[in-house]
């Protein structure tokens, strides 16, 4: 593959494009609502109407408004049909010919779509994720070519540093700094790992990216490999995402076939191979040292850091681990420039962030907004507020490691620092809206049960501490606890947070701490009076 080949592929793809495109969402949510059947009937209807020359029915990745699926969009008219059934196919085709259409539609100009800014999701729901040509036609792999042809590895690292990109997996560590450390670590063999073990309940951003635009992630990984001097990559995907796995496998096969993965990429000395490793249902494997143990085929238990993976990672070699969304930002940054990227977002949080909007909210689905967007804009304008006129009580971010942000703080901008200040975290991007019917102590218990079940069992504070915290929360919910129990719970939160080995344990108390901070009254309402007030300790015999 050369630049010329790339250009020819693009030209051929664009030349073959038909006048009208019916985009049919085949991502996991719409598939489960029957979108495959919709696509088949649309294809049939097109051929019955003799429109094969004019209309392309294209299976695409996530079209974002998951709650209204199956979704079908008609280009270039920019019509978005919602809740489409196979029986609607004929009506959609009729509408293409100018017929009147009464099918339910969503307004592509509504805030849910209009307030999005797509970098990571630019191709998502637009291109066919199963064809590499479609990605190339959208300027895919151009950045990789430019990097290999014109930039030294150090320059690539510098560009990422300059862009201000921070890890999208949760903690927000500066990506450029990480790359620089791996690049500088001595070692003949280095590895790249893409963390696609999206374990936070309520998060489906990475799944959507992998299902909708897998090559974007592969390109980002290849660029990273070149920058740090690695030649082998692994993508660690959870087994719960079969569609993402099959699309990745397909994408890797295609990229190898055309020489965009493998040896001598773009006729340079750069080699890069990617293998998929399938997770097997362990949340803790999202932690990087546990993930590496799992890639090595072992029990996914974390180990103390330092040494950090950048110095000693997979098989003790320097290893770069980034998550899906982080890698997905790489190619756009190099294609459009670090300055362009750094111009988006806030002073310390650059670029955009993809969120999975779910819970008690009208519009659930996938959104990408510039960093610094106020939460209120996301949940009220884009999300349309709570369904059936209810009031939003809190927004949960960061999954079991995060916290609940109460309604009075909805004007908080979403960036790493602001969310941390409120006792939550950015997390990987799950955003669950809770309304007045949600009991916050129950939410805390829900997450504690999650952490208890997902604790690997290696360190004591997390293994046994989560059990005790869970019991105390159960006791509070059962109205059997006293103020002494609540004090015990808070003390345990502090202890588990400060002494646990890995991030799972260190953040397990967060949902309790954040609900205690903003909804303490809900805990106190459940407490029972102490039967015997402890006598003053001065009353010694």
């Amino acid at each position, binding site marked *: 593959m050369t630049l010329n080949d790339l250009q020819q592929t693009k030209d051929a793809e664009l030349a073959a494009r038909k006048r009208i495109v019916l985009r049919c969402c085949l991502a996991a*949510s719409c598939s*489960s*609502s029957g979108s495959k059947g919709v696509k088949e009937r649309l294809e049939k209807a097109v051929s019955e109407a003799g429109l094969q020359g004019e209309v392309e029915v294209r299976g695409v990745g996530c079209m974002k408004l998951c709650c209204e699926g199956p979704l079908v969009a008609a280009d270039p008219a920019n019509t978005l049909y919602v809740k489409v059934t196979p029986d609607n196919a004929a009506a959609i085709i009729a509408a293409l010919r100018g017929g009147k259409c009464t099918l339910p539609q969503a307004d592509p100009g509504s805030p849910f779509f209009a307030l999005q800014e797509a970098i990571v999701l630019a191709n998502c729901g637009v291109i066919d994720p199963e064809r590499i040509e479609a990605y190339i036609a959208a300027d895919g792999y151009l950045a990789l070519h430019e990097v290999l042809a014109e930039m030294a590895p150090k320059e690539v690292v510098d560009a990422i540093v300059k862009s201000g990109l921070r890890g999208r997996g949760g903690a927000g560590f500066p990506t450029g700094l990480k790359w620089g450390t791996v690049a500088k670590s001595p070692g003949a063999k280095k590895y790249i790992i893409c963390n696609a073990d999206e374990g936070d309940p309520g998060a489906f951003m990475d799944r959507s990216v992998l299902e909708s635009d897998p090559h974007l992630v592969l390109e980002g990984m290849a660029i990273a490999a070149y920058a740090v001097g690695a030649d082998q990559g692994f993508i660690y995907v959870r087994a719960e995402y079969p569609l993402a796995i099959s699309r990745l496998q397909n994408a890797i096969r295609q990229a190898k076939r055309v020489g965009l993965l493998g040896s001598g990429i773009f006729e340079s000395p750069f080699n890069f191979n990617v293998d998929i490793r399938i997770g097997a249902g362990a949340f803790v494997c999202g932690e990087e040292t546990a993930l590496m143990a799992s890639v090595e085929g072992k029990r996914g238990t974390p180990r103390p850091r330092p040494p950090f993976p950048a110095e000693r990672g997979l098989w003790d070699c320097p290893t770069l681990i980034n998550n899906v969304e982080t890698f997905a930002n790489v190619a756009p940054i190099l294609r459009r420039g670090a300055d362009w990227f750094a111009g988006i977002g806030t002073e310390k949080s650059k670029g955009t962030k993809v969120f999975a909007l*779910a819970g008690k909210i009208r519009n659930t689905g996938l959104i990408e907004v510039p960093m610094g967007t106020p939460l209120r804009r996301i949940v009220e304008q884009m999300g349309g507020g709570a369904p059936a006129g209810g009031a939003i009580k809190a927004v*949960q971010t960061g999954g079991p490691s995060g916290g609940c942000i109460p309604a009075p703080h909805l004007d908080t901008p979403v960036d790493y620092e602001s969310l941390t200040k409120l006792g939550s975290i950015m997390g990987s991007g799950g955003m669950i809206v809770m309304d007045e019917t949600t009991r916050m102590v129950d939410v805390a218990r829900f997450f504690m049960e999650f952490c208890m079940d997902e604790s*690997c069992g290696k360190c004591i504070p997390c293994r046994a501490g989560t059990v005790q915290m869970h019991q105390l929360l159960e006791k509070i919910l059962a109205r059997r606890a006293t103020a002494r129990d609540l004090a015990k719970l808070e003390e345990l939160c502090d202890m588990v947070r400060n002494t646990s080995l890995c991030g799972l344990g260190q953040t397990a108390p967060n949902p309790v701490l954040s609900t205690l901070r903003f909804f303490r009254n809900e805990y106190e309402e459940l407490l029972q009076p102490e039967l015997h007030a402890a006598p003053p300790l001065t009353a010694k015999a």
Partner: protein
Amino acid sequence: MTTVLAPPKPQAAVRFASLLAGDKRYKILEAHIKKFQHRQDALIEVLHKAQELFGYLEDDVLRYTAWQLKLPASRVYGVATFYHFFTLKPQGEHTCVVCLGTACYVKGANKILAAVEGRTHIRPGETTPDNKLSLLTARCIGACGIAPAVVYDGTVTPRQTAETTLAQINQWVAP
């Protein structure tokens, strides 16, 4: 105290040869292991394949895997029991996985689970005595936009309620 030597065990190769001869699923598994060049770090990949072939990870499969990868049995068992996805017990004819992710939970997944438990008298991870249905829970299947979701025999189904779930279950489980 006198040390008594254990009686000689049959050579593993001989033992596994009879397994291979009797069940072609082992042949397929062997081919898969060869694809990974018997690499020890492929253990999880091999177990995935084994579970796909056998439905669950029975002792002989684990022993065979350990032998092929030259790993101690304790390591194979340790890995197989660490990950939720692997099951060491046979599953029922049908499976019902209730997603208990946050989005599903706030939309009432616990009520769905309670309804199924009440109907079948089994707890998550168990199978009905007639072997018709295995009830499982998931930590989040990423279908949050269409919560609450339930997976029936591998098919993700959106916006479930206790009623719709019971309607599905009732087709499988004797009244």
